[in-house]
């Protein structure tokens, strides 16, 4: 086995880095060249000289942070070369534009999964199985207690939750990019036909999604001084950051819920302080991670983002897959 210095991709200062191409993946500090897997802020930082991403990710990023960044785009599957390394983006099913990134150098394949899910989601391209020698995978939900229900079931639960309390205003907290639009798409297919409002940050992303041809239900941007009667029985989508603090005082007679994979655990649900939790996630569950590891045919696997101890031990013991640790 080689030492970690010889790996094509390694951890450097807490970030994934390919030395041969002098390129960083989702770096958390300004660098010269950054590959961006998707447009969530925890995968993006200002100040890089050059960004490279898919076309959709670039559009969403510019919508969020302004046009003032230099960003080069490629289609899914389109190969480009940096210092002799072949690089390509492949759909990861996390949100619109999200991608896995494959590196090929001297016939050796590396795959960075990015954030991914296998579940059906009509607001982005389905996860593509990509074969590789080395896999670097996220494992946010790397325990077998995490098993997602079909998203239409969750959407129906949400619809029932709202319609069962017609006298209340239902506030559903969710991430503004990706989760919100996926929920809107799913809720659009349920029996719920009341009004849906969304917070400015979500509203902006909704418009971008529509412009990119994604079918999501119409929403009204929430104004600060809405009449209470008008909001009765309707659904309001808000980012989680507004759940604590004075913003909620704008509403009367509310019920609150949080849409997140963590809500499948009762203790976390109770502690979160929301009335209700809907367990829906844009990350893979346990079975999803195992499926990707197996189908990628990777002989060597690394994990990042999450507690990977149990998952690694399981793969080594049960599946005889070589799980490696990054020197961080």
């Amino acid at each position, binding site marked *: 086995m080689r030492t970690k210095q010889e790996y094509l991709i390694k951890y450097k200062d807490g970030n994934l880095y390919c030395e041969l191409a002098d390129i960083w993946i989702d770096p958390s500090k300004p660098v010269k060249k950054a590959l961006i897997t998707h447009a969530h802020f925890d995968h993006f930082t200002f100040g890089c000289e050059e960004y490279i991403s898919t076309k959709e990710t670039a559009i969403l990023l510019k919508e969020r942070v302004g046009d003032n960044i230099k960003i080069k785009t490629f289609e899914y599957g389109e190969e480009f070369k940096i210092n002799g390394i072949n690089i390509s983006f492949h759909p990861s099913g996390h949100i619109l534009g999200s991608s896995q990134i494959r590196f090929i150098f001297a016939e050796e394949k590396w795959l960075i999964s990015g954030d991914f899910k296998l579940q059906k989601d009509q607001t982005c391209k389905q996860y593509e199985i990509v074969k590789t020698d080395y896999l670097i995978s996220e494992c946010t939900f790397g*325990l*077998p*207690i*995490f*098993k997602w229900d079909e998203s239409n079931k969750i959407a129906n639960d949400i619809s029932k939750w709202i319609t069962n309390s017609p006298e209340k205003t239902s506030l559903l907290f969710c991430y503004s990019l990706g989760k919100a639009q996926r929920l809107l798409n799913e809720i659009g297919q349920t029996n719920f036909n009341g009004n849906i409002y969304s917070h400015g940050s979500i509203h902006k992303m909704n418009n971008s999604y529509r412009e990119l041809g994604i079918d999501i239900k119409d929403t009204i941007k929430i104004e600060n001084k809405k009449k209470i009667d008008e909001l009765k029985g309707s659904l309001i989508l808000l980012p989680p950051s507004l759940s604590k603090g004075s913003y909620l005082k704008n509403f009367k007679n509310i019920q609150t819920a949080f849409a997140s994979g963590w809500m*499948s*655990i*009762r*203790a*976390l*649900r*109770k*502690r979160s302080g929301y*009335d*209700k*939790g809907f367990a829906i996630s844009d990350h893979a569950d346990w079975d999803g991670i195992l499926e990707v590891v197996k189908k990628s045919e990777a002989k060597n696997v690394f994990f990042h983002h999450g507690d990977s*101890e*149990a998952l690694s*031990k*399981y793969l080594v*013991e*049960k599946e005889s897959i070589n799980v490696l640790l990054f020197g961080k």
Partner: protein
Amino acid sequence: MSLKKFSKLFGDLDSINSTNNKIEVLKNYFLSNDPIDNSWAIYLLTGKSNKRFISGRYLKNLFSQIYEYPQWLIDTCYLKVGDSAEVITLLLKNKTNSRKKKLSNISLNELLSETIPYLSKLNEKEKNLEIKNLWETLPEDNHLIFNKILTGTYRVGVSIGLITKSISKLINIEEEIISHRLMGNFKPSIDSYEFLINKNINLQELNSKPFPFLLANTIEDKIFKNSINDFQFEWKYDGIRMQLIKRSGNVSLWTRGQELVNESFPELVEKMSHIKDDFVLDGELLVWNFKEQIAFDFSLLQKRINRKSPTRSIQIKYPIIFIAYDLLEINGRDIREIKLENRRIELEKYFSKWQIKTENNISDIFKICDLIFPKDWPDALTYKEKSRENNTEGLIIKKKTSIYSSGRKKGIWWKYKVDPMQLDAVLIYAKGGSGRRAGLYTDYSFALWKDNELIKFASAYSGLTNIEIKELDKWIRKNTIEKFGPVRSLKPEMVFEISFEKIQISKRHKSGIAVRFPRITKWRKDKKINDADSLENAYELMKKIS
């Protein structure tokens, strides 16, 4: 009614935070289900059934065995979830989609009066097979309830008080009456439910009702301007506040939380029923050290509180006493409007009469509180400081001319508590919590300096806010030196102010001292570990007290 509906009730109660809404949900549930299932629901939700058919450990082993699942993986999941029944429910998801016909309409009654009793008749092998079979035939959304019934673990934030309130709303009858009806050996049956919702109240039920309690306020400086002679002084006991009622020959014990606790203290009920007069007494229940004539620690009382029908040996091991400090009603005459000093005279008069006239000796379980007579306010302060010696928490100061009103009324009763003892200590170990705190490191151990070594001296898990807990949890994960199972040893860096009630020599601890009720009172981010206290400081504190 099906088990499904009960599962739904459980889920609804779990996702509602407002008490009023919970009551509404319960009320509707009772209205739309038949009496037998309602009575089972009450039985389960109030924790009347503490029965555990199998342990959480057994459940986890069984799952591991049936589905060839590594035990360590289940244990890792448990750390995140904090409840065996829930872990297994989550792991069972999508595992049991065999083509077996589903038992979708099994009723709560059927499950509890037939299926589960049948399980306990089987030998281990048959039992395991049967549980597996039930897992595969019960619809998935009933698994949690089923596993919880098996392991006897209910915590849905539904107290007996909530059930009482919802039945009280349902039939429009006062809560105290319902409380009384719910008391005792509640056997689920159509009759027991019909009795519970009977709209006719009988006399005996009316007779058991307590008065609203009068509560003490924290001491205010302005009291010291008054003459010391205006007040009555008592020790503040650290027990359970209680009204002891005897009317028409029946004794009832009511806690301040409107709970009837006759069953936990049968010896007191029995003794008091020998007194000829009827009365309502206000006082404190304690576990009593008869040799030294002081109260034992509250921790011993805890051994009695949650135990119904205690055995004779428990009664001897933890002997209780009721210390009365007020008389509110005597032979049907409500005397709450009489001045405290006169009520005290009545209390003393009747107590000495009862001591002489009652057939069985009552003074081994019942007495009236001693009064203290400080000559001035500085003297009162001296008494207060001495209160640790007799295991009390300080003083209660009552205005002699006051009447017994209700609630935390100002200017009538004050509590004058001893200050807690405090040391600054270094966090050295953390352990994962369970239940609501699962997945977070919430149980902490703290150390003091001995020369250049940090020696563990106390463990605490209360006192931090939820935000602080999360922050500390993050820090713990980043600063772990070593893991031993659920425990992590930590880089010594964080200093906390630990408060406690008592400090004494203990040979069982490496530090040589033991403290009572340790709790975190401040996260001393301003202090470095070298600023933390030493064991020597702790010994000095001990000397100062004794």
